[in-house]
């Protein structure tokens, strides 16, 4: 699974796994971590994770280098991602999270663009059709996980561009 994934140069740099005390250095470090988490999860099609999984995952644990990012620092990276809109905690105890390599608003925009382009405003879709239908095969959002899709549609709903509705066997969406 991790075969084709290209680790960034920081991953082989031991200081990457120590939270830097210098504020400017830390900013760069955290930015690199956020970017790494998102590209890792994107490639592995991982949309959710627990903190425990994260600790042991090669993402935060470089076995060859014999360095792992301590859990307190992992929490700081996750908080950065949350602030940026790429992460959402799935429980109060902050033990598992949803990770979205694109923010829900960005997905919403892409979906709506496709809808408009294909002249399908005022159409109704099931959620399944959107992410797994033939028509969307070439689209980036094809294969998107349901949790992220829902949040993307909720973002559109806020902008009055869509409405989430119930259809015969689940949920669907109407676009305006």
């Amino acid at each position, binding site marked *: 699974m991790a075969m084709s994934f290209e680790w960034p*140069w*920081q991953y082989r*740099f*031991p*200081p990457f*796994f*120590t939270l*830097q*005390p*210098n504020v*400017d*250095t830390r900013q*760069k*470090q955290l930015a*690199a971590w956020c970017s790494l988490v998102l590209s890792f999860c994107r490639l592995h099609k991982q949309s959710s994770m627990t903190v425990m999984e994260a600790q042991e995952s090669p993402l935060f644990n470089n076995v060859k280098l*014999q*360095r792992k990012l301590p859990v307190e620092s992992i929490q700081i990276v996750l908080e950065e991602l949350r602030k940026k809109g790429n992460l959402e905690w799935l429980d109060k105890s902050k033990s598992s999270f949803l990770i979205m390599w694109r923010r829900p608003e960005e997905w919403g925009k892409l979906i709506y663009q496709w809808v408009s382009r294909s002249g399908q405003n005022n159409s109704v879709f099931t959620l399944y059709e959107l992410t797994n239908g033939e028509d969307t095969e070439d689209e980036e959002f094809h294969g998107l996980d349901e949790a992220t899709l829902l949040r993307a549609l909720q973002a559109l709903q806020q902008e009055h561009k869509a409405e989430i509705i119930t259809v015969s066997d689940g949920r669907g969406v109407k676009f305006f």
Partner: protein
Amino acid sequence: MDRFVWTSGLLEINETLVIQQRGVRIYDGEEKECCMAILLSQIVFIEEQAAGIGKSAKIVVHLHPAPPNKEPGPFQSSKNSYVKLSFKEHGQIEAFEDLSKLMIKAKEMVELSKSIANKIKDKQGNITEDETIRFKSYLLSMGIANPVTRETYGSGTQYHMQLAKQLAGILQAPLEERGGIMSLTEVYCLVNRARGMELLSPEDLVNACKMLEALKLPLRLRVFDSGVMVIELQSHKEEEMVASALETVSEKGSLTSEEFAKLVGMSVLLAKERLLLAEKMGHLCRDDSVEGLRFYPNLFMTQS
């Protein structure tokens, strides 16, 4: 209490003052000038009795029975085998706990001894040699041989100013030998070793060093973020040394404080401060693991 004997209060020929406690007085009736003594050989052991509610702190002195050929004293016989000394304001205990109060009392003693010494001078010719000896032994018994150097220059800032100037003289060469920078502990050892007698207290050293810059002397005191204090030559630029530290670290890939100290020929303490300063300035970053603390060039900033 029959162990006491009357005495003049002065030291006998083969006696020396070991320790003195002021604030305790015995009056013979209304007469202040009286003294009672218990020979040390009479004492079995001494214990402290803590103060209680409505009770002062006491020292209990347990005694052997009086020898039959004892000198005359205030009592012929006693059924007790111990005496208790009671202290107002916990005298003994507090005085040692509060060194600054002791300093004030010491100052009083110095003043008193000065005035007695002056009285001796004034009465020269009117005072017998015998009385002079008695006065001098009073001074000795108060525990003051000579006023300390501090007194010559006065205490406080004037003294520290003089000291600062002296330090500038002593430290110039050693600093140059050590690359322009020394930790304050190194300075303390060096200076006190040179002085031999009249050692400097750490407080006096720090206070004098604080004045170096103000007095426009060629050295200065610097305090790092960690709290470590150093003396630097004014000409020394630690920030420039950081640039060369970066070069050294880059050459070796990464270094610990100990490795860096060895390479450059510095103490580990100062080596660490230099590396920390380099980190603060953004030139280095750290790798902190079970293997220890290592410093690397800050690639986060230099690489894309």
